[in-house]
């Protein structure tokens, strides 16, 4: 058994009287793909918002690399190596693809003003390294030839891939993907499937995935959590989930 990377216990999020997330437990180990599934409005995105610091959880603990991160500011959590994408693509659409990749590396660059004004050697070296890292990840998602295009002009599938590359260039250890296959055609979904598996096997990171595409989820997940109406319903390997009567009734049955 590998070490626990993310360990969530009793995570609860209330909006006034509405309990959007109710005592959810999650565990992600190193080099694992873990999926969260559940019907629309189940509270999956809210879980992501709590983990990534966009909402302070009402209750519960979030341990990341053995450290409590519940209630930390979003950008601090991201700097610790837990980075997310969004259900609706959020790119800097007036910037080029490469610039999107550079913004993501902001804190790896030399932001000393004097160094930048006079283009010192360290400044140029760090910028070149950032460029190289950006090019590497663009290559990984098959987007290198679009590097100088404006992000807003890309196709939807390309925007999705750029968003993942932009997360990866920050060098995270855990990547949170919120419905990355939504709106993709079967071909693009297959590419995405391969990419996520490659992230785990070659780049040795863990992925926490929210997805509605069942064949994708069942195909790549090491472990699956099912939540319905904010409450944990079941968890297990894909095979266990497929046979779980509660899940079939509450979720798979309705499709």
């Amino acid at each position: 058994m590998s070490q626990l990377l993310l360990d969530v216990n009793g995570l609860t999020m209330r909006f006034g009287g509405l309990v959007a997330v109710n005592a959810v437990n999650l565990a992600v180990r190193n080099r694992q793909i873990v999926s969260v599934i559940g019907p629309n409005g189940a509270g999956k995105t809210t879980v992501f918002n709590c983990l990534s610091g966009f909402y302070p959880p009402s209750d519960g603990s979030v341990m990341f690399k053995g450290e409590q991160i519940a209630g930390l500011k979003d950008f601090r959590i991201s700097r610790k190596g837990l980075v997310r994408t969004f259900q609706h693509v959020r790119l800097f659409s007036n910037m080029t693809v490469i610039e999107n990749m550079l913004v993501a590396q902001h804190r790896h660059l030399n932001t000393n003003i004097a160094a930048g004004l006079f283009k010192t050697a360290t400044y140029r070296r760090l910028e070149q390294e950032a460029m190289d890292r950006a090019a590497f990840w663009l290559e990984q998602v098959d987007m290198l030839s679009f590097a100088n295009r404006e992000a807003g002009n890309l196709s939807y599938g390309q925007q999705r891939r750029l968003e993942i590359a932009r997360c990866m260039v920050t060098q995270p250890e855990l990547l949170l993907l919120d419905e990355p296959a939504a709106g993709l055609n079967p071909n693009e979904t297959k590419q995405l499937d391969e990419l996520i598996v490659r992230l785990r096997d070659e780049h040795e990171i863990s992925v926490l995935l929210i997805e509605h595409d069942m064949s994708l989820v069942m195909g790549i997940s090491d472990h699956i959590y099912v939540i319905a109406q904010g409450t944990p319903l079941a968890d297990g390997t894909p095979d266990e989930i497929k046979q779980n009567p509660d899940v079939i009734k509450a979720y798979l049955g309705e499709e």
Partner: protein
Amino acid sequence: MMRQNFYAAVFAAGITLILTCLMVGVKLTSEGTELRVVGATSAQWAWILSGIAIVFLSQLFRDHISAASAGIPRPDFGKLLPAVSVQARLKPWLIAAVIVGLAVWPFMVSRGAVDLATLTLIYIMLGLGLNIVVGLAGLLDLGYVAFYAIGAYTYALLSSYFGLSFWICLPISALLAATFGFVLGFPVLRLRGDYLAIVTLGFGEIIRILLNNWTSLTGGPNGISGIDKPTLFGLDFNRRAAEGQTTFHEFMGIDYSSSYKVIFLYLIAVLLVIWVLFVINRLMRMPIGRAWEALREDEIACRSLGLNRTVIKLSAFTFGASTAGFAGCFFAARQGFISPESFVFIESAIILAIVVLGGMGSQFGVILAAIVMTILPEFAREFSEYRMLLFGLLMVLMMRWRPQGLLPSKRPHMELKR
């Protein structure tokens, strides 16, 4: 549709009625110790009523008017510029030509023209500085003039109390204004965007009122006079040298002429503007400049990527403030006299107008707008009473037909070269 327009028209007319009645319809006059309310004359009432009628009718027939005005061709100043590739090739030559032109030009025109050009350059500096805050970082600063005042008073006070020279005070002014920007921005920038506008508006007034009332230090409304002019490597531009010093004309062995001083000030202003342009251009290509734009485009995405928005906004705010401090220091040196009257809210509004008119974020546009805003009033001196009216009209027309400004911003894009 018509019915909806009718309600909107009644509403707009009502607002106009209330505003004009308060501002034009009644006046407070003091008689001895008493205040008396005086109504408007019948001629003024006629104007007020016809104004209300115009507002009412224009709102009622809004659709017809916008349909008719849609036919009017809109000028596209961007098209007047050559293509991007040509621009890149011509740029170094163009910059060289402009710099040479700026350096030679003052020797061929009148003193008044050079003086006006210097004033324009000050506004260009202020416009460029505020453009960092408003145009690049998307923060609304309504009290920008406060930092200008801080820069000006820093030099005036240091010069008159400690006899420090202009060149030493220039960085000190910028630094002090930046410090004020930092201290003011730090608590406010954590809050929602709208608070910044209100707080900066208040800050502008606080600084002005402070300068006005701290009579023992700042001389209050009388201001500070006799501020030293800049020197050229220790040479000053007066007719007679102070004790133990030489003047410029003595050193050069030429006759004294007061226009040397004016031209010298102008050249300093040119240098300062070039420096500001250089810094801003580098900033836009640096990580921090990209972060400003990214934050303006999608703050949530920035946060998810580990960018600290408070620090990034604060840096823009501080940079803008330091530029104003710079300009303020030069302003004090040029005028030789400053008082709180130079730093009223309307100055902030004019600088903001320069940025909006120029096309937020575009430096060339800001320069163009600064020229328009300082030179036009000089040509239209007879209309000086109507200056604010024209100014308001210009703003309304701009918002209606060209909200993106004269020359909307085109940021230099970073390219991946392989």
